[in-house]
């Protein structure tokens, strides 16, 4: 699997064989607090980077999740339907939210590396 990259909206992305796996960062999970519900995106939808595609509801607020890159949604993490708190426990592995077939891998290389994301958080 490729290096994990991050967006300014606190999503993480990793790519394997042109399939991107996407979730929210551990930092995002911590600031949202207890997550109680996630409205998963629809499989088969084609989306553009920055499109709002699903919503995470925590005890504090609803938070939109954006597509980090262009592509087609091909799979969602159905385990989250029954237990959205998986995101609190393991945001960057078991708490993945959806997978996309990537249309333009250049968009991925423009995202932040883990170190760059850490610096971004400190700003």
């Amino acid at each position, binding site marked *: 699997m490729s290096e994990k990259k991050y967006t300014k909206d606190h999503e993480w992305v990793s790519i394997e064989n042109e399939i991107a796996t996407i979730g929210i960062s551990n930092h995002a999970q911590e600031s949202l607090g*207890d997550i*109680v*519900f996630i*409205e998963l995106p629809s499989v088969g939808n084609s989306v553009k980077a920055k499109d709002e595609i699903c*919503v995470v*509801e925590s*005890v504090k607020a*609803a938070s939109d999740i954006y597509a980090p890159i262009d592509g087609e949604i091909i799979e969602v993490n159905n385990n989250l339907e029954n237990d959205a708190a998986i995101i609190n426990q393991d945001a960057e592995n078991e708490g993945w939210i959806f997978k996309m077939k990537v249309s333009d891998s250049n968009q991925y290389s423009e995202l932040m590396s883990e170190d760059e994301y850490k610096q971004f958080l400190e700003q």
Partner: protein
Amino acid sequence: MPINYKTGIINEHKNVRNHSGIFDVSHMGQILIENNELYLHKLEKYIPLQLKNLIKNRSHYSFLLNKDGGVIDDLIISNIDIKYKPYLYVVYNASRKKEDEEIFVSCAPNAEKIYNKNCLFAIQGPDSINVLKNIIDIPNNMNFFDILISKYDYNEIIVSRSGYTGEDGFELSIPNESAENLITDLLKNENTMLCGLGSRDSLRLEAGLSLYGHELNENITPIEAGLSWALDKERLEDKNLNGNKILSDQLKNKLSNKKIGLISTNKSMLRDGMTLFDNNNNEIGKITSGCFSPNLNKSIAIGYIKSEFNTDNPIFCEIRKKLELVKINNLPFVKKNYKKNGSVYE
């Protein structure tokens, strides 16, 4: 006061329902008003109680009312002696300090704000009595809404058996210099923990309790807010009370809106400000408070709907441009657990 401490809102909430939790509510207003006939008479223009008949060492839930009977603030008012002098001790909302204090001082020029020198802590939940009684003297026969003076660290503190979570509990007004010691002493008991604003909100919402700025504001009367039980009915005939005519009319006639409890039928979250519809897409009301209920494991809400709406019909809530079915639920969502006559009652 933070939204939550380290373990999060849901854990804090459950700890209060099952054991005990401590809220630092020192941001709230606290004022001492000399208990004399002139001041009481002036205050009775705003407060719908017979202030001269308030029983010593008891607290009352009440309001400050504007000239239309709208709620300037909701508050707890207590009759208590401090250093052998009779006072009314009032606890009121932080967001309404300016409005409330203008009224208090106009009625009683020497009213003394004490929130700069006294912290206010609420310890809430069924184990609170056990956490507290080793540290502060609490008489066995102290009931919900009783209030008294006790001692800690050689300082006098005001102890009331009250709170805003639906659970048994206490509020402690304590001089700043002793506040940290008290919290440290309380936290030595592993059944209690510090809790934040998030769980304070979900606990009061489960208990069906109103919050100023949500269920209550200057355009809503206590009767419209379903709180007529807190009004002294004789005072509604008294022209000295702000809005007395409007309030007594409202008590006799049908209201245009009613307060309801709602519960989500799926996993979607109900939030303040969302609009409610009937099955013909007509707007029938709005949500004023919504949250995730840790006890019911579903989202719950309080809102107002038109009185003429027949609640046997389905209600929909607009959530992100979609209409989701919601169900009416009697308030409170979780039964209250207050102490009365030596036993805990609902």
